[in-house]
């Protein structure tokens, strides 16, 4: 559930007592109508709070933790597991790592790697949400999340497929999996890795810690999933084209 408007306004009053709504919107780049609508409805989106917090150079994580539904985020956050970190590496970066580890004849640098390998892209990536859930799933996770939140499994899956997950569900998923609460917020793009308190080299270190076999299997799985998605899209495109050829 998004943040209650009353608590949000209280928070806003504490962090920026002298700023008007117009100032806040100008600073944070939120449309005034958007904010007004959220306040009228009584529910303020988490992303609104994060944008304002960022604009005021505060910590979005700490500010989010000030709200009752995100109280779990308070205190020292549990660091992400290596699997979570690797899940936030884009598929193309994983493939690049495979090539980078290969023999020079194939364009790689051998076992040692090289400073020439480009840096990993920042999370989130195109399939970061599903990859995150897959990384922490023990096989029963989706059922537990569904039981805890009342969200139907097929709705949950649909969100994953669309690479979306509401912050509330992201936190509920982390709780059900027993991992740190920041993973889902990073995977959904609500927080950056730095805002979540992840060390800057954490992803690279987790990637380097993978054995060649682990890395190759993981890259292969990702590539297969990407191939499936592309094939499905191509098939749908074909179908659409056929409809337009005959009826358009």
């Amino acid at each position, binding site marked *: 559930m998004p943040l209650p408007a009353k608590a949000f306004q209280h928070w806003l009053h504490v962090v920026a007592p002298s700023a008007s709504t117009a100032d806040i919107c100008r600073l944070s780049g939120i449309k005034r109508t958007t904010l007004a609508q959220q306040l009228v409805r009584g529910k303020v989106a988490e992303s609104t709070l994060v944008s304002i917090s960022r604009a005021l150079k505060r910590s979005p994580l700490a500010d989010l933790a000030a709200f009752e539904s995100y109280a779990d985020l308070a205190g020292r956050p549990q660091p992400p597991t290596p699997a979570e970190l690797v899940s936030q590496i*884009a*598929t*193309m*970066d994983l493939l690049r790592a495979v090539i980078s580890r290969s023999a020079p004849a194939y364009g790689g640098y051998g076992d040692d790697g090289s400073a020439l390998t480009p840096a990993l*892209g920042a999370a989130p*990536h*195109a399939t970061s949400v599903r990859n995150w859930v897959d990384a922490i799933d023990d096989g029963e996770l989706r059922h537990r999340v569904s039981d805890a939140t009342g969200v139907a499994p097929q709705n949950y899956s649909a969100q994953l497929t669309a690479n979306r997950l509401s912050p509330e569900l992201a936190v509920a998923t982390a709780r059900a999996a027993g991992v740190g609460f920041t993973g889902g917020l990073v995977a959904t793009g609500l927080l950056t890795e730095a805002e979540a308190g992840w060390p800057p080299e954490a992803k690279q270190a987790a990637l380097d810690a993978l054995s060649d076999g682990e890395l190759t299997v993981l890259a292969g799985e990702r590539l297969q999933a*990407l191939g499936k998605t*592309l094939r*499905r*899209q*191509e098939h*749908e*495109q074909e*179908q*659409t084209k*056929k*409809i*337009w*050829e*005959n*009826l*358009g």
Partner: protein
Amino acid sequence: MMATLEWMTLVVCCVALFLRVPDAVRGRNRTVFGILFLGSLCSVLAVSELYEVIDGALGGWDLTSLILRYLVFATVLLVGLRVTSGLAAARAHQLISGGIGRWALGLGCLAVTVAFFLTGSSWPPAGPPAQGAGGAGDADLSPWFTAAGRTYPAFVSLVLAAPLLAAVRSRLPRLVRAGALLVLLGAVCAALSLPAALTPPSWAGAQHFVNYAAALGYVVGLVVFWFSGLIASPSGNARARLRRNRN
């Protein structure tokens, strides 16, 4: 209300027809234009006032109502063939174009012709019943003529229902699915209009509603298909997706 429905259907058909004129001139999908042309012709004949005029010109013995049925059959046949090949529904296409479909069309034509002459021979000389209204004078036989005229459309609509439903439930572009949904609603109404023809005259309102809703569903659905293709941008293909994948 009946007059409103009749005129509204005519206007919608004509608007759809005019929208397709440029494409037809360019030679693109002339069959769809043909479908809409036949559909418009049918809806002209379905307007009571215009029907009287045309039927008067043809001798005034209600031959026009028989012609109208044949036109409807032709329109439905073309729609069935086009929609099934568009949706790549090979089995449904085979059902309509193959032996079963030809038998259905033949039997439909036979039924409507027989019903026409049986009904016609029992008409009083004062004047035959108004078409489509379920028969003003001969409530006993003319519903059978109406029902016979709806057999083949109902057959094609039932065949189309499954592939249309699959298209509605697919993950195709939203407008395409909206078009499929509209055609599906039209098909359901067309199928329902067959039993509706045999309901008592007190149900005339509902009878007319399903009949015109069927026509409107088909025509507006075709327009939405056309429109969805018109606004679709050529970008967004799979290769672009692969390039974007790093985002």
